[in-house]
């Protein structure tokens, strides 16, 4: 489908890579990553910081893989483990943890929908989120579940996948931009109104892609499990009309129909529509729409997710790399343009080729990245940037709203408190008594601006200083506050417990001294204990995954 030329180019660059920069062809990907990153340091005279401490690594990898900080017991177990392979062991455990799928689903759901999708039921997408979490846990190859998203069979409640198109109801141009950007890392939005000034894309390219999705309709098929369910219908006929550059458009002028054409490749060959087939004006509500005689959408889904598509695998490895390393090898991760070169082009090629060779195995890719030396560097020292250019220091990433709430619950021992008092924690991890998810979402839901830089302003501190976090610091039996207050141990030991439970590390001597002073200043240390917990919950070290 992509012609022989592309394959030849891929093969050449691959062999060049193995001959040129890798001593053994059987090297694991993590070794290739280390080599490439190290040669980047050398070539640019950059000195990396030290390896992360166990505490730094522990907190980072928990947050990155399962979306919350470790419990006190989990932290102590890891910190005291003498096994030199304990990091690799922990990574494998977390990849097998049931929460892995949930957390990855949180992240990828944001990629596909963002915080504020446009409606038509897209604000309630549990069907989609659970479906995605399942695929991450089962480790379904990436190309398979993305093809399902683009084929959009079934309905939004029972399978979830069609939800992606629902958000672009009646807006095929927006769907085209989103698909090329999210799945292929290509930004076509400029070509919507004029030929792209830097890239090769023309308006014809844009509308050639839009033609694949222009026949889709969102059909309300009724209520299932008390929720509105949608399916995606496809008409047999209907074309995108191209009226020329926006600046030359004249009211009333009809455009030329544009045939579907794959981006940077050939036009779609589609069978002629047999005579006598007529589309309804609209698909009636309440029932599954019929299949079209020929589905452009399915041909499109197969093309996008084809292992030989030169953009598809590259876009996703770059995105996953960015997810863990803070910044894509091409950054922003969804702009793989010749105008926006890669920092480590050979590494990007190696990741892409290996990922395809490993059959789009996401857990494998993530495992290799988090086992690399660059991922496991410290976050202390180094340059001021949040995401150092040559990966010479660990990146700073603000915790998402979900990660924050889940980690607050772990850090305060909130669920243990409920259990100790004969109550059950809420079934949904985001329903926590005393903390309104809508507020957490509002104050922490979009910690980054459009290109992934931290934008936290004073609003979030108003919430932390004056808002509901306090209700998690419960004084009842089982919670951290109670445990600290009622422990028989010396304050120094209790301060250690506090630090390990909230920050996943042991305190320094200075910290132990200062906190012990604070906690033992008065006969009744209840308030001081709350203050100490609040301090660690709201400090920079907690706010970021670093």
């Amino acid at each position, binding site marked *: 489908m992509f012609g022989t030329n592309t394959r030849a180019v891929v093969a050449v660059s691959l062999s060049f890579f193995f001959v040129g920069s890798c001593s053994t062809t059987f090297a694991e990907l993590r070794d290739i990553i280390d080599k490439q990153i190290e040669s980047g340091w050398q070539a640019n005279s950059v000195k990396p910081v030290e390896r992360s401490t166990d505490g730094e690594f522990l907190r980072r990898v928990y947050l990155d893989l399962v979306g919350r900080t470790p419990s006190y017991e989990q932290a102590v177990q890891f910190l005291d483990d003498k096994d030199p392979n304990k990091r690799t062991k922990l990574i494998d455990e977390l990849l097998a943890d049931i929460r892995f799928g949930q957390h990855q689903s949180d992240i990828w759901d944001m990629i596909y929908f963002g915080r504020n999708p446009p409606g038509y039921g897209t604000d309630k997408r549990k069907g989609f989120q659970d479906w995605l979490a399942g695929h991450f846990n089962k480790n379904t190859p990436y190309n398979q579940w993305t093809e399902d998203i683009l084929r959009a069979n079934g309905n939004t409640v029972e399978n979830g996948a069609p939800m992606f198109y629902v958000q672009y109801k009646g807006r095929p141009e927006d769907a085209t931009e989103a698909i090329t950007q999210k799945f292929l890392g290509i930004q076509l939005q400029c070509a919507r109104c004029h030929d792209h000034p830097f890239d090769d894309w023309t308006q014809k390219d844009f509308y050639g892609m839009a033609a694949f999705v222009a026949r889709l309709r969102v059909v309300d098929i009724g209520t299932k499990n008390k929720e509105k369910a949608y399916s995606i219908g496809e008409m047999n006929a209907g074309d995108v009309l191209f009226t020329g550059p926006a600046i030359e458009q004249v009211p009333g002028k009809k455009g030329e129909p544009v045939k579907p054409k794959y981006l940077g490749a050939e036009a779609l060959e589609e069978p002629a529509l047999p005579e006598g087939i007529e589309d309804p004006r609209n698909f009636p509500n309440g029932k599954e729409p019929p299949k079209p005689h020929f589905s452009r959408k399915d041909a499109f889904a197969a093309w996008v997710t084809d292992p030989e598509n030169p953009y598809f695998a590259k876009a996703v490895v770059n995105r996953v790399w960015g997810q863990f390393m803070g910044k894509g090898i091409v950054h922003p991760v969804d702009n793989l343009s010749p105008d926006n070169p890669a920092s480590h082009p050979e590494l990007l090629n190696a990741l892409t080729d290996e990922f395809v060779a490993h059959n789009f195995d996401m857990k494998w890719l993530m495992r290799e990245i988090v086992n690399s030396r660059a991922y496991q560097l410290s976050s*202390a020292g180094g340059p001021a*940037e949040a995401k150092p250019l040559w990966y010479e*220091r660990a990146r700073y990433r603000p915790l998402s709203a979900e990660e924050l709430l889940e980690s607050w619950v772990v850090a305060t021992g909130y669920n243990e408190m409920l259990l100790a008092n004969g109550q059950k924690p809420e079934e949904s991890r985001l329903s926590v008594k005393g903390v309104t998810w809508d507020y957490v979402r509002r104050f922490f839901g979009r910690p980054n601006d459009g290109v992934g830089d931290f934008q936290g302003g004073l609003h979030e501190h108003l919430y932390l*200083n*004056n808002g509901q976090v306090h209700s998690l610091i419960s004084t009842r039996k089982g919670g951290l506050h109670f445990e600290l207050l009622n422990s028989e141990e010396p304050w120094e030991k209790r301060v250690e417990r506090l630090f390990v439970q909230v920050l996943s590390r042991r305190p320094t001597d*200075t910290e132990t001294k200062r906190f012990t002073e604070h906690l033992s200043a008065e006969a009744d240390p209840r308030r001081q204990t709350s203050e100490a917990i609040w*301090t660690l919950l709201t400090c920079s*070290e907690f706010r*970021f995954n670093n």
Partner: protein
Amino acid sequence: MWNICPRHEHLSRRALLKGSLFTAGGASISNWGSLFQSDLAAAEVSKKKKHCILIWLNGGCSQFETFDMKIGRPTGGLYRDISTNLPGTRVCELMPNIAQRMDKLTVIRSMRTSQIDHPGGIYLMHTGYPRAANVRFPEMGAIIAKYCGEQDTDLPNFIKISSQGNAGAGFLGPKYHPFNLDRDGRLPTFSTSNLDEKIEMRRHGLRDFVESQFAEKHPADPARMHREAYQRARRLNNVQEKFKVDAEWEKSRERYGDTKFGRRLMMARCMVEAGVSFVEVGQSGYDTHADNFTGHKALLPTMDRAWSGLLDDLEERGILDDTLVVWMGEIGRTPRINNRSGRDHYVRSWSTALAGGGVKGGLVYGESDKDGVDVKDNPVTEGDFFATIYSALGLDPEAENFSGVRPIPLAPFGHNVVKDILA
């Protein structure tokens, strides 16, 4: 201009300085990493402390129903024009109060901008630049907060009340990020601390210790931003009273018109008086693809009354000369009236207005052709418009900030300041 006595003034100042020392240690040219250096530069660029109020007409107000009427032409619309206190200049009958204050206004009838959709237009008319994949341009409010604002202050320097725009401070960094009041111009939820002052100080002392320990070994920007934002949130406690304006509103209701929008504009005046350098106030609903005429009839009288009230109020208080009032939306509307009595998006020829500090007043600049289809003379692009606003505030539009290593001037390269309208 404002004399509040912050509760912990000496403490918060000291804490702020302490926080900034870490900054100086990790100084680099990237982004807003070198706040101190650029603060010095800011002092040079800014000649005098000025203020700016932006009245944002969200959706795009029609020039044909406000300042550029085409009476008797097919594009003219339903309304009549009325005379103003500026001889020879006529405006729409929906703005009788503004008509009597045209001597204070500079109207530009020859805007020609580049972004015709809402998201693109909103970004463009907040930053002066079209959206770009790799540069996060700051909004005008952030720039004015940086160059005109008090650096050591308890109040945020960039306040938004019920308005649009999501570019924020961009590469200028969170210090200049907008602070959003709620729809009525009140402080948002959780803004007020209920802690006893002594306890708050004790808690703050412990937290400050933790942050200092972390900062010593971790020079990374996000942690510093987090510390600075915490300081600002804390300092907001010192100025809670500034946001309680119920009594003031009772006195001003008549002047601004008894509307929510009127109250927001009065709040803007209160904020400017308290020392805030930039306040943006939004009025929504101008995107009249259908029923353009009823739409504007519903919105403009409210706007007319409140805007006039604001100008009078600023003048009476003697601060109009130091306060530039900008009136604009993201786009204009089409000459052609569509089959739903609506007007669509149009950026080839439209209108904006300025008043107060730095501009002449009593002036209509530029002209559109007889049907309002195109600019007849003196076109003003977004770059020209932003450069003129910055010049009116005493700022050099060519002053540069850095996005990474790339220098970015305040107003886009190739602009022309419209000198004719500067005072």
